[in-house]
């Protein structure tokens, strides 16, 4: 009986589309914390990411396979190994680390010029908004010259990975802007 019932239940729902999301940004931007928060895991024991972490997050109609790649300068050259078949790029910025805005802007611009990421929608998380010295998302958008992006859809979302505020809004935007499969 068990087998029959589970079969019936499976027939009821159509399989969700699998989406590949790439999570990039400088070290200490909060990528792993965002990843863990998205999959409702404990975020109090985070360590710096060597290599990468992958998690599947279920949202309405989509199965998001999120790849979180370490952001340390030494491993940034390996980012390109993960570009293939990416549906959405999420770029994370530590809004409170003004000293490194220039560095993060350079890295972002290089990503935007990558052929393999051509035309792929980009979501920018202006993270750590819970900190008192965080810059507002609008200011960061100006600083990164986001309004001059013409070749793809983009969005900047203020968020706090620790409280989870803003994460869902960002993901909703990402899901709406995924290009249909060719």
């Amino acid at each position: 009986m068990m087998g029959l019932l589970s079969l019936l239940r499976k027939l009821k729902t159509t399989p969700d589309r699998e989406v590949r999301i790439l999570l990039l940004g400088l070290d200490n931007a909060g990528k792993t914390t965002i990843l863990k928060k998205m999959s409702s895991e404990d975020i109090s024991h985070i360590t710096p990411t060597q290599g990468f972490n992958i998690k599947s997050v279920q949202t309405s109609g989509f199965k998001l396979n999120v790849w979180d790649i370490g952001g340390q300068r030494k491993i940034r050259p390996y980012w390109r190994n993960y570009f293939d078949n990416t549906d959405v790029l999420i770029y994370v910025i530590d809004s409170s680390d003004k000293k490194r805005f220039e560095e993060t802007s350079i890295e972002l611009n290089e990503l935007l010029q990558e052929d393999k990421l051509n035309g792929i929608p980009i979501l920018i998380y202006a993270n750590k908004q819970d900190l008192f010295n965080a810059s507002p998302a609008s200011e960061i958008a100006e600083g990164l010259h986001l309004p001059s992006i013409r070749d793809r859809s983009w969005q900047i979302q203020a968020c706090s990975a620790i409280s989870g505020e803003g994460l869902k809004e960002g993901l909703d935007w990402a899901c709406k802007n995924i290009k249909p499969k060719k």
Partner: protein
Amino acid sequence: MSTNKPKSVLPSWMRFQLVEDIFNYAVHSVISLFSYYFTLILKILLRKCTGLCELQRICYKTEKGAQRSLEVEKCIYSSRRKVIRRICEKLDDLAKNGRFNSNNTCEVVRLVEHAVEAICVEKDIKPSIHPEFVTAMRICFLQIYGYKNLQHEIDSLRSIPFDSTNQEHEEKLLLLWKTLNPDYPLKSRVTKQWTEIGFQGEDPKTDFRGMGILGLENLLYFATNFTKTARCILLHSNHPSHGFPFAITGINLTYIAFTLLNNNRLKTHFYNSHFGTTCLEDFHRVYCYLFYTFDKLWIEEKPKDVMEFSYIKEKFVCNLNTELEKHDAILRWNPPVEDI
């Protein structure tokens, strides 16, 4: 007159599910009730035949170490007797407050003595006739609550974030550099040189993250107590193609050690190697073992680049879990002679 039919709200397949769940629940409760009475009768029979209670039978049939202490722990925590429950609660509380500390020997001995006496009275055991039982229970209590105490101590260290305005933290960080790189002084506090010992950027303060000051304490213990080994691993870690970042790996190893302690996997190691309470230094030593064996595994695996870290880390944890599942597990390593 219309009556509400709640059943019609549910789709038919869910109604089946409900019936199925109720059936499963009923079967489950009958089985567990039966097994409860079965074990109870078995225990009474064994007690009558051997004249020994379950705790005594455990202590007499096993050698001191993980097997005995784990069984005793399971036995006292599943006991329904009020006295034993109270003892467990009381000792749990004391361990949470850090009282089962090796610096607190007098009080610990007194506490354990009380607990063993209470158990002897409750179970009607004469200490003069069963001195081995008393000794065995003393060791078990020291191990069980020493471990809990250590869990608590480690977690409180972990929850102190690294703070660059705290002079003590800063001094420890600088000492780490000096110990690993005595010939090359730091040019300034914020410098790219930190990446040479495997921090991510110019300032290590953001690298400790969720492991807090525990991550730094672990690294510093390894570097000061096993300096030769640490420097040798640092040398491996700076290999241009087969390298790995030393300090960041260290912080990830702190996480592994912390997780193993918290999910009770380290019990076998500690119960087999320490016949008293455990202290912070014992945890540091486990960490040193992890660093040493991780480096060995990394070299054996010959990764093509650092992106294979995730895979090697997973394999490393898997190996550790298999090792620690054995009843006679002890994490032992042989540091080079100069380091002893």
